[in-house]
């Protein structure tokens, strides 16, 4: 049976009234105090405990105001001082970096008055250590060459240009040899002939399920004035390549790149390529066009790409302006006519291409749905990570990270990304009087709502 039809049947039967459901509740399940035999009790109990802890910290209401829970989380503050003129630049091996690492005592407390977990960070000691490569510090957050790796519950920061995770198979690319390598055994998986071109580099790898990956690359020299934020907005890129690559069979298929009507530049923005949670496709944002277009690109043999026009005129802020949801819905941010500080949350229904406003002028700067479809959002200068609740169409606070900038510095939150299912990373930028940028990042465990500053 077709998936759409099955969904349809689910939708119809979902509407059966609660009274009939209660009436038909099987006797064997009525007042079931025990889980069925074989249920993983240990695991379940553990998860319940974790969840309850998280909820306690997360909601924080219903408890005495004085009963602020102090949870000391081991952690440290990483201040990556990116020397050189282009702190946002990627993979610049000539640039050295200095990391000031500060051991921190982090206090997490609940508030009785709001649904916010207040988290404060106190700096205690300080040490300095060099790092060999600076590019991970910003690649982590969705600039070209998204770069993060979650393994064994820990975020690692491999010094790789691109990396993606799908069902435990880690793939990465190296800028040096233009091939796509499997981390597990170091095997070369994919080497397109275009990789022989000068300045060839991969720019993204996005899993689409069932072993398929959507891969993008460009052949262009690094722009010395490269600014990551504007790179996709005013790109120098003139040659872009896209492929579908199938990991287990090694098959690959070149995908035609749409050209901008305005300046004939390729328009698939590697930052904004996201997996379709329904499987079998990715969504990509076409930029440099007004209005903006989200393109759904299905895996080979699953039909043609389709464009959806959305109005995202001012999407200069945030690194993840849209996020696909199940059942053909795509949430995205739209500045409308009021400017980027008033970004509204919108919904695109790919069934008919219609769009509607979910939250108006809410000022979100970044949005991302985890694999379990929890929708996370970051408000510009809001210093908080929010969860969007579709059922009630509102935002609730997941975590708030208060960081007191040292004297002479200004601090603002910039973006976040969801890592694996249960972790989100918020990036903040600390600027000094000379406009040098320092990156402060915090990884939030969405399960228990604890966070730690990335070291």
């Amino acid at each position, binding site marked *: 049976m077709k998936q759409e039809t099955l969904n349809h049947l689910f939708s119809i*039967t*979902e509407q059966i009234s609660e009274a009939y459901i209660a009436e038909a509740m099987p006797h064997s399940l009525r007042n079931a105090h025990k889980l*069925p035999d074989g249920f993983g009790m240990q695991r379940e109990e553990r998860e319940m405990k974790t969840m309850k802890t998280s909820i306690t910290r997360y909601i924080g209401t219903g408890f005495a105001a004085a009963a602020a829970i102090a949870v000391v989380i081991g952690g440290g503050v990483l201040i990556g001082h990116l020397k050189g003129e282009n702190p946002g630049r990627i993979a610049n091996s000539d640039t050295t970096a200095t990391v000031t690492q500060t051991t921190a005592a982090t206090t997490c407390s609940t508030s009785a008055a709001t649904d916010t977990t207040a988290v404060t960070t106190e700096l205690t000691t300080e040490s300095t250590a060099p790092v060999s490569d600076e590019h991970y510090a910003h690649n982590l957050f969705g600039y070209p060459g998204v770069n993060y790796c979650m393994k064994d519950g820990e975020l690692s920061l491999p010094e790789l240009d691109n990396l993606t995770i799908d069902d435990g198979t880690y793939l990465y690319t190296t800028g040096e040899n233009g091939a796509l390598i499997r981390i597990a055994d170091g095997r070369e998986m994919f080497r397109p002939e275009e990789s022989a071109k000068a300045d060839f580099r991969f720019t993204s790898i996005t899993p689409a399920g069932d072993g398929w990956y959507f891969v993008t690359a460009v052949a262009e020299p690094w722009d010395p004035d490269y600014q990551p934020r504007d790179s996709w907005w005013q790109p120098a890129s003139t040659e872009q390549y896209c492929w579908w690559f199938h990991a287990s069979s090694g098959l690959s298929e070149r995908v035609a790149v749409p050209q901008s009507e305005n300046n004939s530049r390729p328009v698939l923005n590697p930052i904004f390529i996201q997996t379709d949670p*329904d499987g079998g496709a990715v969504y990509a944002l076409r930029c440099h066009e007004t209005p903006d277009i989200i393109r759904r690109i299905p895996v080979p043999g699953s039909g043609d790409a389709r464009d959806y026009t959305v109005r995202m005129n001012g999407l200069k802020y945030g690194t993840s302006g849209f996020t696909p949801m199940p059942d053909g819905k795509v949430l995205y941010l739209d500045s409308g006519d009021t400017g980027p500080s008033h970004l509204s949350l919108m919904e695109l229904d790919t069934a008919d291409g219609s769009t509607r406003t979910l939250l108006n002028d809410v000022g979100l700067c970044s949005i991302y749905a985890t694999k379990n479809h929890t929708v996370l959002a970051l408000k510009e200068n809001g210093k908080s990570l929010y969860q969007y609740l579709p059922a009630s169409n509102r935002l*609730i606070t997941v975590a708030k990270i208060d960081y007191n900038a040292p004297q002479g510095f200004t601090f603002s939150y910039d973006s976040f990304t969801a890592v694996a299912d249960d972790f989100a990373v918020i990036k903040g930028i600390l600027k000094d009087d000379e406009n040098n940028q320092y990156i402060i990042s915090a990884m939030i465990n969405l399960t228990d709502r604890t966070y730690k500053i990335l070291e």
Partner: protein
Amino acid sequence: MTDQAILELLNRRDEKGLTAVQEQYSGYCYSIAFNILGSREDAEECVNDMLIRLWNAIPPAQPENIGAYAAAAARNLAKNRYVSNRALRRGGTEEHLPLEELVVLPEAPDNVEQEVDCRALGSGLNRFLGTLPEKQRKIFVQRYWFLMPVDQIAADLRIPKSTVTVTLVRLRKKLRNYLEKEGLL
């Protein structure tokens, strides 16, 4: 603990409410999820997700029947996971859900107008269920909402398996006639 007591605890953001839901309804929700997913691990995940969803939803939601509400959440979560699992296994063999027997209902909608029809069909289905004797209604709901195997329904209602099967065939036919009469098909 009564549903009303659980609701009061949840409204006060007292985690004892969640513990009560877990004690009283997690087995129930697990079974629903398992009927859809056929995987113990996935069903466990759905139960945990259901509890989080419940905590996030109440308040403001004030369901009259916590069990049914929790079950609906678990069913929905299991459905989403089933869709996701199925997409990943594309081309492989897969278990058939009892829902597939409901071919009397129309194909998936491909536009907004038909989406509205989906809601109309849901209402029509409820009206149809209202016309049935209690036992037949239970058989239908257990099969197509709880997605229970025929032998489990037979055991629960203490009737022969063949009675369940025959009743379901008749109910599907009756449903089609009813919806046609209402102009929904």
